[in-house]
């Protein structure tokens, strides 16, 4: 199966993302485009603002470690069972990046407001937390639907990433991308100004004309660019295709303990493009 002519390389996609861009990325098992992540580090992207949907792991950590990130809005960055995300932790502790702490459904709500073109989205909870106390952009009003006042509700402003970036199981030669049941990728694509995707495989046919595939397809109206990148989520998983590479994630954490170790890691896996075993 040949790669569609309209497809770009991941380096071409990375070069279309300017410094300072607001980038929306899915969580660890949601189809992370590690290939575009590595290409962003290769092109020495700077001052990126990350919006994790709603959390992140090695993707955010690597970008922070490589000096690409100025700001992150997130509900959590962690390497899960392997431990803390070392660069994230260090950068926040040292004040090297601006952190905007959130809670998962608030980030979804910010994107849903953007998806609908409505200025805000109301959400229960959050009240009385220091998350809310540190978010001057989140407003609290008394529920206008309640009789007799009171009943405070938090309003989240619409968040519109400049770019949604993720990795999808299929792309076809008509510009369609298939994410299946990963609705957070659909949400992210709808909410963002433009969507940049790497795809694991090329789908023979038109995804929009296949009644079974239609429900999981994102049409070209949302998609700015596609690159073919087999194993493009590695060392993370692409559910349904491959598991995450736990050994590699452990070796990443070992490398990240020192500046030199991390530089050697980037040399090997990012600048020399050495991939999965």
């Amino acid at each position, binding site marked *: 199966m040949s790669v569609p002519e309209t497809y770009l390389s991941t380096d071409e996609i990375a070069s279309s993302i300017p410094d300072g861009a607001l980038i929306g990325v899915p*969580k660890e*098992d*949601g189809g992370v485009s590690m290939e575009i992540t590595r290409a962003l580090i290769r092109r020495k992207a700077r001052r990126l603002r990350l919006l994790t*949907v*709603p*959390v992140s792991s090695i993707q955010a950590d690597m970008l922070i470690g490589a000096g690409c990130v100025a700001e992150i809005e*997130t*509900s*959590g*960055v*962690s390497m*899960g*069972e392997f431990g*803390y*995300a070392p660069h*994230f*932790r260090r950068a*926040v*502790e040292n*004040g090297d990046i601006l*952190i905007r*702490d*959130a*809670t*998962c*459904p*608030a980030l*979804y709500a910010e994107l*849903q407001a953007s998806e609908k073109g409505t200025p805000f989205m109301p*959400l*229960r*909870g*959050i*009240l*009385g*937390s*220091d*998350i*809310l106390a*540190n978010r001057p952009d989140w407003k609290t009003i008394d*529920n206008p639907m309640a009789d007799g006042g*009171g*009943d*405070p*509700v938090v309003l989240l402003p619409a968040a519109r990433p400049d770019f949604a970036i993720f990795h999808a199981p299929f792309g076809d030669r008509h510009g369609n991308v298939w994410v299946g*049941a*990963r*609705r*957070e*990728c*659909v*949400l992210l694509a709808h909410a963002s100004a433009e969507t940049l995707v790497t795809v694991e495989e090329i789908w023979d046919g038109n995804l929009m004309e296949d009644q079974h595939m239609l429900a999981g397809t994102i049409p070209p109206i949302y998609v700015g660019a596609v690159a073919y990148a087999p194993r493009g989520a590695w060392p993370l998983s692409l*559910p349904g295709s491959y598991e995450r590479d736990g050994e590699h994630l452990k070796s990443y954490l070992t490398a990240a303990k020192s500046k030199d170790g991390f530089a050697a890691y980037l040399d090997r896996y990012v600048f020399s493009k050495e991939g999965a075993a």
Partner: protein
Amino acid sequence: MEYTREELLICAIARMLDGCRNIAVGTASPIPGSAALLVQAISNGAAKASILGSNIHNPFNDGGPELFDRAGQGRVDAFFLGGGQIDGEGNINLVSTGHYPEPDTRFPGSFGSGYLYFTVPRVILFREEHSRRVFVKKVDFISAPGWSPPDVYRPGGPYALITSLCIFIYDKKRHRFRLDGLLPGVTLEEVHDNTGFDFDYPDHIGPVVPPEPDRVDLIRSRIAGEIAETYPKFARDRLGWNG
């Protein structure tokens, strides 16, 4: 019947989940996950366990927002949270110690706690490390408060706190924990020594109820294999699974 600490905790949690129909379990939670699967197994289909990271034990399919939306609707009955710090009013801190936003130690972040602690009726706090570092007088950052003023819509909140030493039950009226049972070999004094907050306790504090033998059998025969799909190392090392 002999039993392990894990079997004791799984059965203790399972009793707390009695009557729940939808039980959701988040990241890095093998013991709560096993308890949820145990309740599902003995419920004859009435209870559904949603284990984050499982491809089998997940009644949802509509992406990241779905669990939160269902919780917002009151369709999730129980959930589990931890905390880098937890204080005596049930406030939890998953963000950082020291002065925010320039912390001494940064934790991963609040995840869904700022919402699920408000919307899920039975939130069980599970934190094995029982120390004054974790159980503090007042958390440095409130990811989610233990209680809210009466004008705040809040069907949810803390139900219990389970540690490696004991089980506390949360008193929603007094906003305080009450010691409910000690793990084998643990004394009240030991709990006091390792807890940074005040808590209530009865005159005679007994041990945590031992696990029901038929449930221990079920854990060993079936649940160990089910949780192994998501937590193979835990199942092998701590439940004796040899699949």
